[in-house]
């Protein structure tokens, strides 16, 4: 049973993946607190470590081209265990959407709209996203190429504008931190932005693709998104040096340092707008995936009337997740990567192995 009949091209999938990863620029602060001036190495290591799992994701998509994650779990683990795992994924997708929604509201409140309460901003975001989610995957992903291009142009431009403040000695000393910090940093980057790509297992039946195309789109999307994340980290370290770990959003400070004559300054507003735009995209996609998962789990043919209620749950649930930003930072650095590993790496790997052993998917009888 396919709930959303809309189809997107594999090229749109590429831009969607890139946009999804670019929106994680906000998360580099969690990393720079741990690995400081070596964070650029850790982003690179995280990407390398995640590559085999990206291949696994592409292979699962190619093996089950007509089934989304919930249907795959049902087929591989049977109806009971499959449903239990499906419910666990529903919690995972809802949590991911709620965390990102809260992040967006807090970031907007902290940078642009100081007096507006964060839940009000979450509500506005949900109301706009709900329009796209109701229309389906086509509208959800439609603007991703525009978002990606705008983000790349702005990031590149900002790098040129701060090049005079870029110091190579800011990257020194290299490899002086304890080995545990590199391991922890690599784990964070591999699970939090990169591993979250597992959400695409809910979308791939809506992508027109051949086996080769799907891996290519995933890989190139990952390359564009990962390179943006890496170059952002490089730029921030090069400009901010050993103060990079002091800021909640290092990129915002880097943009604030842009000073070209008397007319071009306070460009951090550009970064704020782009990050809000990218996060809005990520939330809309995660929102769509959460609604789709509920509909698929409970076999509801039309999800349109569930969109608003799921959105309201995302807002209220998001407010219960972390009592303070400090608790959130500690949780993201210490426990979240371990919990996420189960959903992003362990279950997909086990599913792949079991599907191979059981020679799934079985060819349908005529």
């Amino acid at each position, binding site marked *: 049973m396919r709930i959303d009949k809309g189809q997107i091209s594999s090229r749109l999938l590429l831009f969607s993946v890139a946009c999804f990863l670019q929106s994680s620029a906000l998360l580099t602060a969690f990393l720079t607190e741990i690995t400081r001036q070596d964070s650029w190495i850790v982003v690179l290591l995280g990407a390398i470590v995640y590559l085999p799992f990206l291949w696994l994701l592409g292979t699962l998509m190619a093996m089950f081209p007509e089934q989304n994650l919930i249907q795959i779990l049902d087929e591989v683990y049977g109806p009971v265990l499959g449903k239990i795992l499906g419910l666990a994924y529903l919690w995972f997708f809802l949590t991911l959407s709620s965390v990102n929604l809260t992040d967006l509201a807090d970031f907007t409140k902290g940078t642009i709209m100081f007096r507006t309460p964060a839940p009000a901003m979450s509500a506005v975001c949900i109301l706009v996203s709900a329009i796209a989610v109701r229309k389906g995957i086509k509208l959800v992903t439609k603007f991703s190429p525009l978002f990606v291009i705008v983000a790349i142009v702005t990031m590149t431009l900002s790098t040129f504008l701060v090049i005079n403040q870029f110091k190579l000695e800011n990257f020194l000393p290299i490899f002086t931190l304890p080995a545990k910090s590199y391991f922890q940093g690599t784990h964070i980057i591999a699970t939090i932005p990169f591993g979250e790509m597992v959400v695409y297992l809910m979308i791939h039946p809506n992508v027109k693709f051949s086996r080769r195309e799907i891996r290519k789109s995933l890989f190139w999307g990952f390359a564009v998104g990962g390179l943006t994340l890496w170059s952002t980290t490089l730029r921030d370290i090069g400009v901010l040096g050993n103060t990079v770990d002091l800021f909640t959003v290092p990129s915002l400070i880097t943009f604030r340092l842009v000073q070209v004559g008397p007319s071009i300054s306070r460009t951090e507003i550009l970064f704020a707008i782009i990050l809000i735009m990218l996060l809005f995209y990520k939330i809309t996609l995660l929102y769509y995936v959460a609604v789709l998962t509920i509909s698929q789990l409970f076999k509801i043919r039309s999800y349109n009337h569930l969109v608003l209620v*799921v959105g309201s*749950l995302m807002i*209220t649930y998001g407010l*219960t997740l972390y009592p303070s930003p400090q608790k959130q930072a500690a*949780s993201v650095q*210490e426990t979240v990567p371990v919990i996420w590993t189960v959903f992003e790496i362990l279950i997909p790997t086990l599913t792949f192995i079991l599907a191979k052993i059981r020679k799934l998917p079985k060819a349908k009888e005529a």
Partner: protein
Amino acid sequence: MGLIIAAYAIFALVDIFPIIRSRSWRCILVFIVLFVISLTLAILLKLKVKIPSILLFLGDILKSWHLTY
């Protein structure tokens, strides 16, 4: 509080009648369950009741198993 109840009443009115008309009982049940959870959370948050965080709770379990950083 009045604003929260009004907001929830509006979106319940927007969605509940089309679902009832479609006679999709499963959809009605899922809608009611999600609606009740969301409204309860909203009221509790408004009343400043401390709601335990699932992520922090899971984190505590992992810490007791020495599975965290």
